[in-house]
């Protein structure tokens, strides 16, 4: 019952946060006006020409707000899945090298542009980031697959190795970019400015099936989180489950990263925060981590977009907002739980 109330209140707060965030920005737009813009957009009325408020809300703020929610939600849910499947509280959606792969792809695209090397038009930073993330994911999977299937230690270690190699390569890209190195650094720290409706649509279309699959496998996730051998004697093909869920969540994260850049910390702390509140049952965690991740990222993005005098990379803010709160909860929980998760 307590958990059901939490689900409603989190989704409710997310909705309120979306409306609230749409009011804030360089131009302050009243709640009533935002609401009527919403209603007319939802009912399919074409906007009145020359209505700047409607253009600001529907073309600039809402896509960015929805992107923050969808990317944050993706990172939150993926983080939950990664920590349960890899039996590791330090795991996050980037454990299998998705972020370093994306970073490499993006910096390669930036460097090619800086050096004036012509590339086909479709090879944008986002596309290169996505290809880098997927390439890195498959390399890690191939490296970790051994006789005993994908063991969590092998996966984590392979992820660390591939990321280490890629970060050296990214360092080299930064060196090559010379004075343009700022573009790479800015991308690496993540940003949700200049998000298009197409990108929001893509993210939403990917999120829905991913959430459904994760939700369907939550019972298995619970059993796997209590130990590999136990799960296998209860009839779960742990190697297949890992391959399926890790691939799906990494793919989902790769899409998220390709549109937002690398936003750290959300995927790591959201599952921890929620576990302190509702316990380790993944059936609840998966439902809750989407709105929780969305809220955190939306809060961080709104602060950087509307509150601060100039935009700060969002990855920095998620850590600055989420970090201290996490430290507080973690400390409190440690005393209560004897170090258990």
């Amino acid at each position, binding site marked *: 019952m307590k958990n059901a109330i939490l689900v409603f209140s989190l989704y409710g707060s997310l909705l309120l946060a979306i409306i609230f965030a749409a009011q804030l920005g360089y131009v302050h737009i009243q709640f009533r006006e935002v609401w009527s813009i919403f209603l007319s957009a939802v009912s399919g009325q074409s906007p009145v020409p020359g209505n700047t408020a409607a253009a600001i809300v529907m073309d600039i703020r809402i896509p960015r707000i929805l992107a923050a929610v969808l990317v944050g939600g993706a990172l939150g849910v993926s983080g939950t899945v990664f920590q349960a499947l890899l039996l590791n*509280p330090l795991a996050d959606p980037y454990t299998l090298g998705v972020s370093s792969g994306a970073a490499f792809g993006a910096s390669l695209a930036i460097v090619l542009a800086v050096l004036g090397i012509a590339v086909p038009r479709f090879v944008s930073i986002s596309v290169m980031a996505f290809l880098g993330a997927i390439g890195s994911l498959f390399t890690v999977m191939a490296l970790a697959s051994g006789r005993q299937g994908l063991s969590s230690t092998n996966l984590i270690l392979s992820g660390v190795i591939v990321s280490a190699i890629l970060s050296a390569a990214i360092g080299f890209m930064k060196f090559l970019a010379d004075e343009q190195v700022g573009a790479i650094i800015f991308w690496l720290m993540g940003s949700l400015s200049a998000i298009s409706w197409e990108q929001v649509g893509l993210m939403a279309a990917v999120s829905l099936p991913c959430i459904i699959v994760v939700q369907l496998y939550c*019972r298995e996730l619970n059993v796997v*989180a*209590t130990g590999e051998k136990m799960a296998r004697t209860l*009839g779960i093909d742990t190697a297949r489950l890992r391959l399926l869920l890790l691939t799906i969540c990494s793919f989902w994260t790769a899409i998220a990263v390709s549109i937002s850049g690398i936003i750290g910390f959300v995927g790591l702390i959201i599952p921890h925060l929620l576990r302190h509140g509702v316990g*380790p049952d993944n059936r609840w965690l998966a439902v809750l981590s989407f709105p929780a991740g969305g809220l955190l990222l939306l809060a961080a993005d709104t602060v950087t977009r509307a509150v601060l005098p100039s935009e700060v990379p969002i990855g920095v803010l998620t850590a600055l907002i989420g970090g201290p709160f996490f430290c507080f909860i973690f400390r409190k929980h440690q005393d209560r*739980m004897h170090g258990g998760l």
Partner: protein
Amino acid sequence: MWQIEDLWFRYNSDLPWTIRGLSLHINSRTFTGILGPNGCGKTTLLDLLAGLLKPSKGKIVFDSRQLESFSARELSRYVAMVPQDFSIRFAFTVQQVVEMGRFPFISRLGGPSREDRKIIGQVMEELGITHLASRPVTMLSGGELQRVAVARALAQTPRALILDEATSNLDIFHSLSIMSVLKRRMEEDGLTIVAAIHDVNLAADFCTDTVFISNGRLEAAGAKSELMNGRIVSRVYGVNAEACPDAFGDGIQISFRLPKEDPAAKGPTEGIEG
């Protein structure tokens, strides 16, 4: 229940054989103790019996069917296991963990039925953990955790139960109480139990059958009354062992000494062969 014929197993083709040509029958409604020195292949044998590993050569038949022909899900309705290492990092409650034993019987979208709840309640009471139901497993003592592990395996309502050193970290009281629960399950419900046991005297107390393994080979197998003697224990473990009636007069007690000459060089049989 299990017929094992000329079973060979190694983890990797570069590694030496862990199980070497082992043939064995484990009858249903027995409590079989698997005994042998550290590293003799007990855990590997149990993993093979549970279908977690596939034989490299030879075959295992479970209930007149090749073990490999069972799907993991199907086998989980017949065989349950209490693994050696039962540590859980996430703070699931005792009730949640025991309920996971019903996993193979609950559909993907459904919850536990009334029958499932009844079984869960019964096993928790049997193991004396009802009062811990809402306690996180991360806050339990070793003895409590072990009882949760056994409760979870029994909640699976298995026909056969495999235990890997399930009582080795427990004090005398908790070891004896878990073993008594298991023995009663065997006698009353016809549960077949296979347990790797370190404590020879505990095996002598509770098992009906014993299997001695050393260096992946079968040393001896049969009814406990025939095998629990000083000669076999001496040979398998590389010690001087003597059996005598125990102080209660209804069992046997085995006492050990290190052999007098150069004990370090001798050790159990695997040391001599290897």
